[in-house]
């Protein structure tokens, strides 16, 4: 049959890739005991933070890279998730099984509202209006003294998670890893399902999709909500990590950082957000010890990526691994 073995160009799924992904997951899971054996316990927490940002960047990459919507207000969903957990904790709701889904749902609902309005515009206007909404939410939160204003809202302790103690850095790391892995698996399924095919078509040729009978905006809105929901989960994790829902999480520079992670990692590739977050945070970690001007190195890195690996670190690595390796 003619269609046998045919795959979309992006998000290629193969047994070999699944094997690699599983090996990477095992290696990442082995990191905390390894670091502890080396006496570098502190870095378990650093690594957990990287995974959380990887989740946030992945969720943005789904909107930007797969949905084709350059959104500049992702901090709103990230921050909303963080505040949801902190506010619920303040009222005595400390279970992760309640607070985290609530955080994701709140961020998703927010994405539904912001998306429904913003998707009436395109291109630069879409960038500006998503930025404007995120900034409105930022100013709302710093003006609400009840929720900490400028100082943010602290958490007394990490969420409770059944019999597991998230106060243990290794346990928290594993939970963050599980969230990231689950999100990547989910997005990979979506990319290959009917919905993902539609998004791919919209990214390629929006007007043609309308002429095939697709209500384009409805699919873009759904994509925006999925991305926002996952960002809310990342926000719930980051609030737990730093024991604080900080207004900085809502600031536009946070949206910018996430966008840079996506661009460095690889727009529209499944692991782009992960690769970008890792690259940026590792760089920050390595260079802040050397110089306070580490952003200069970040600028250089961006230039290198744009000129030498325009499809991002993930695609570049994929190219290295698959050279001569795949059929």
């Amino acid at each position, binding site marked *: *049959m*003619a*269609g046998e073995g*045919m*795959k*979309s*160009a992006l998000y290629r*799924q193969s047994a070999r890739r699944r094997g690699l992904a599983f090996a990477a997951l095992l290696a990442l899971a082995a990191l905390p005991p390894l670091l502890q054996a080396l006496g570098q316990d502190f870095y378990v927490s650093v690594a957990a933070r990287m995974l959380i940002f990887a989740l946030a960047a992945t969720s943005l990459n789904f909107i930007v890279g797969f949905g084709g919507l350059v959104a500049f207000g992702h901090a709103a969903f990230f921050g909303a998730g963080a505040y949801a957990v902190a506010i619920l904790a303040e009222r005595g709701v400390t279970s992760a099984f309640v607070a985290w889904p609530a955080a994701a749902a709140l961020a998703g609902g927010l994405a539904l509202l912001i998306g429904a309005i913003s998707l009436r515009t395109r291109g630069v206007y879409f960038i500006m209006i998503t930025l404007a909404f995120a900034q409105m939410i930022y100013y709302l939160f710093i003006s609400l003294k009840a929720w900490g204003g400028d100082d943010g809202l602290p958490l007394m302790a990490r969420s409770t998670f059944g019999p597991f103690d998230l106060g243990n850095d290794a346990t928290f790391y594993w939970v963050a890893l599980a969230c990231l892995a689950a999100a990547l698996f*989910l997005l990979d*399924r*979506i990319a*290959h*399902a*009917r*919905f*993902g*095919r*539609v998004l*791919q*078509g919209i990214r*390629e*040729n929006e*007007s*043609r*999709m*309308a*002429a*095939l*009978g*697709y*209500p*384009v905006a409805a*699919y873009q809105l*759904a994509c925006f909500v999925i991305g926002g929901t996952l960002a809310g989960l990342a926000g719930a994790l980051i609030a737990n990590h730093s024991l604080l829902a900080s207004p900085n999480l809502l600031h536009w520079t946070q949206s910018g950082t996430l966008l840079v992670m996506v661009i460095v990692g690889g727009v529209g590739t499944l692991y782009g957000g992960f690769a970008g977050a890792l690259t940026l945070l590792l760089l920050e970690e390595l260079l802040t010890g050397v110089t306070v001007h580490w952003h200069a190195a970040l600028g250089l890195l961006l230039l290198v990526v744009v000129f030498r690996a325009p499809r991002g670190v993930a695609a570049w690595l994929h190219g290295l691994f698959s050279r001569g390796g795949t059929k």
Partner: protein
Amino acid sequence: MNGEKSADLLEVAGVSRHFGGVHALSEVSLAVAEGEVHALIGPNGAGKTTLIHQLSGAQTPDAGTIRFAGEDVTRLPMHARVARGIARSWQVTNVFGRLTALDNVALAVQGRQRDWGGSFRFWAPVDKERAIVDEAAAWLAEVGLAGRESTVAGSLAHGEQRQLELALALATKPRLLLLDEPMAGMGPEESERVVELIEHLGRKVTLLLVEHDMDAVFRLADRISVLVGGRLICTDLPDAVRAHPEVRKAYLGDADA
């Protein structure tokens, strides 16, 4: 085919459209009968493509109404008109350049699925949906692209991309197909193949055809409408149109009249 006997599938009444001070269409009224091949001709800039835009929903007219199968569709967005059975092709090839030919048509077939969730399905891999893949392959065969399934659309020859574009429109299973210069930019052999294809399609679906190739128009059309300067100057059988003095003057050139 005899257009007079069947009901009108498409009724256009007093449609106007202007861009700034330019009147692209002035009170155009037109009826296309179910089952006919209706050609729309006129000099460059006459408003043919603008009329196709109003009918397909790419644009909305400033005045007038468009009725399709008895329903007023004047204000409906494009995707809603496609769902009711109006499909179109473009003057400039408009396909998904980076997807394979098969994936292109599979998208069109998938767009028609109204089973649970439609295209809001997030889990099952679409590549494994045999019904969609097989139907897409069948449409490719229908337009003469069998064997080209796995070729990326952007690297198909120009004529093949035009054929693919037809397959995309057909796979939405339209009752009315709006073809905007389907032979634009084609060599004589490719054109001949597309004319044969359109002849074949004309027996299955109602066609409104915009075309500059007069040989093709007179060979294919049951009736012809002539648009000049945004006004419809006549709708008639091909021989009558050929003899119409105003048409000769405005369009065919009256040097030999």
